[in-house]
């Protein structure tokens, strides 16, 4: 029973990270129709910026968010202007391949600079809180908290600011948004920049708990895709739900299949993905473009 509760808590905590990680991916998809296969590499970049600040300047990883998010915002803006803008509104194959190429470039650039050795950041917020038989890992608790705060801020931004409203408008109807005078390419650039910043933040969140290395990206992209398939495009509560579902599945498999369970995380996310897409083409909670009617 305690093992069960422990797995439940760990799963929810992992889910919080996944939720933040997936939002950037699903909002870009929802607003621009671009499936960003370089997503995992953007997480990786965020993690590496955190690691550099932590290693070179002794920054607390959580404090690194102040640098990570603006840097990634600017990077995202530039990427969109230079590259992504050329593939928006073109067939999916084009954007898939271009972002895949981008991913390869990013991971190999990082590898050239920092080698392929796995790295980890050190945080002062470590240790455990005990409540009865159950332990709460301090770092992961803070990660979950940070994740919830980031999602709340994103929600407020999308709901109440002018830019946020135009992003939502563009997500719902590109043509209509254009007609009412929204500068669609500006909206795209801002959206991509914000999502990149979010994704960078996710990279920071993963850095204290997991080894970071240049080629950590593709499994994360795949998980982001699986969660989006479950949660629908650009939905914050959906992302949280989907993230927690995947987190729980992974942690439970790791807990109850000793030895090889940790390696099966990616397998489980893939199985979830295919099962969801085949049985519920609109996504588990709806909102996904039906898989049978994609251009």
């Amino acid at each position, binding site marked *: 029973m305690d093992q069960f509760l422990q797995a439940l808590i760990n799963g929810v905590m992992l889910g919080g990270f996944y939720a933040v990680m997936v939002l950037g991916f699903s909002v870009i998809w929802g607003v621009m129709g671009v*499936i960003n296969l370089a997503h995992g590499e953007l997480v990786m970049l965020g993690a590496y910026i955190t690691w550099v600040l932590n290693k070179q300047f002794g920054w607390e990883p959580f404090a690194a968010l102040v640098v990570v998010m603006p840097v990634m915002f600017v990077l995202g803006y530039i990427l969109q202007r230079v*590259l992504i803008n*050329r*593939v928006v509104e073109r067939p*999916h*194959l*084009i954007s*898939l*391949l*271009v972002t*895949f*190429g*981008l*991913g*390869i*470039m990013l991971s*190999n*650039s990082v590898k*050239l600079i920092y080698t392929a050795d796995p790295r980890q950041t050190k945080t002062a917020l470590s240790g455990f809180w005990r409540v009865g038989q159950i332990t709460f890992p301090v770092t992961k608790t803070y990660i979950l908290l940070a994740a919830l705060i980031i999602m709340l801020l994103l929600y407020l931004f999308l709901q109440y600011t002018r830019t946020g409203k135009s992003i939502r408008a563009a997500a719902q109807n590109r043509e209509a948004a254009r007609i009412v005078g929204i500068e669609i390419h500006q909206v795209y650039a801002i959206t991509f920049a914000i999502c990149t910043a979010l994704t960078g933040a996710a990279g920071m969140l993963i850095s204290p708990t997991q080894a970071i290395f240049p*080629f950590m990206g*593709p*499994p994360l992209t*795949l998980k982001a*895709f*699986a969660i989006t*398939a479950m949660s629908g495009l650009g939905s914050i509560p959906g992302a949280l739900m989907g993230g927690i579902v995947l987190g729980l599945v992974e942690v439970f498999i790791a807990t109850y299949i000793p030895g*090889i369970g940790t*390696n*099966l995380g*990616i*397998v489980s*996310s*893939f*199985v979830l*993905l*295919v099962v969801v*897409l*085949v049985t519920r*083409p609109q996504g588990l909670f709806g909102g996904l473009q039906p*898989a*049978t*009617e*994609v*251009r």
Partner: protein
Amino acid sequence: MKGLKQIWRQYRLNRWFLFLLLVGLFALPLPQFVAPERKLVTNSLLFSFTQMFMLITLASNWNLTGGFTGYVDFGHAVFFGLGAYGTGILMNKLGWPFWPAMVVGGMISAVFAVLIGSATLRLKGPYFSISMLGTFVAMREIVRVSKPLTGGGEGLTLPPYLNRPLFYYITLILAILVVTLIWWIRRTEFGATLIAIREDEIGAEMRGINTTLNKITAFWIAAFLSGLVGGLWAYQNTFIDPDVVFFESRTVELVMMTMLGGLGTVAGPVIGAAVIYWLRDVVWASFFQYHLLVEGALLIIIVLFVPEGIMGALGDDSSTSLGRIMRRWFRESPKEGVA
């Protein structure tokens, strides 16, 4: 571009060119037998050609689902991997000889393709692509954890057999067979059906074509052939482990080569694979650590600037110029109809 087209029209690959090319390729390893001590043709050159033939075969297979049928498969290397592991396990654990092991390896790939394809081929566009990428990554982990069978992360060793000229000939013949097969498929109703599915799947289904059956058939044929290549690769490499067999960018390389040559054309994957392989082998072999970086950039450039590929740029789209050559080759009158 216009000048290029003119040159192409004038000096278009003719049957003599093709004939000489094939004779040349078959004759290339001969100095090895006649005068091995003079080292006219090195083993490493033969090895390079072997790799290129394998890439040509794999890209042609990929093109069958990705180019003709329009189902862009981001996990095609999973079939290569299954073939490699099937062959490896049969030879290492059961002591089978190579040939039956390779064929069974290919069959394992084909069976897996039917199973996975009947789920994933219902998905369209990006959903199909990503779920195949998922299949690929998941299969790597499954291979990693199935330690008793696959040796896990430590990999498997195959009985070494380092006869470069032999592998050269096997892969050359396999490449010729596969390209001919695909050229022939393109001429049949089956090939036209695949293109019809790419152009308008709902329309094809409504006009009486069993699209699922056609898609799965194309899928398993490609998987079988890629499985054979996987088995060959495993045997000539003598060692397989999950990371080297299920190498991350292997599929994307195939996509890139096919796109460079021309998606959905018979000659496209051949030209694309040859160009990219030699570019990599010759031009940037000396900057090895940058090669993936350059490859990523190249992929972006190809996709953005020559999405139609070389064949497309030369004005030769899905009506196959290679097909025309071969038809002349066999002295057939160009047949109207499904060709």
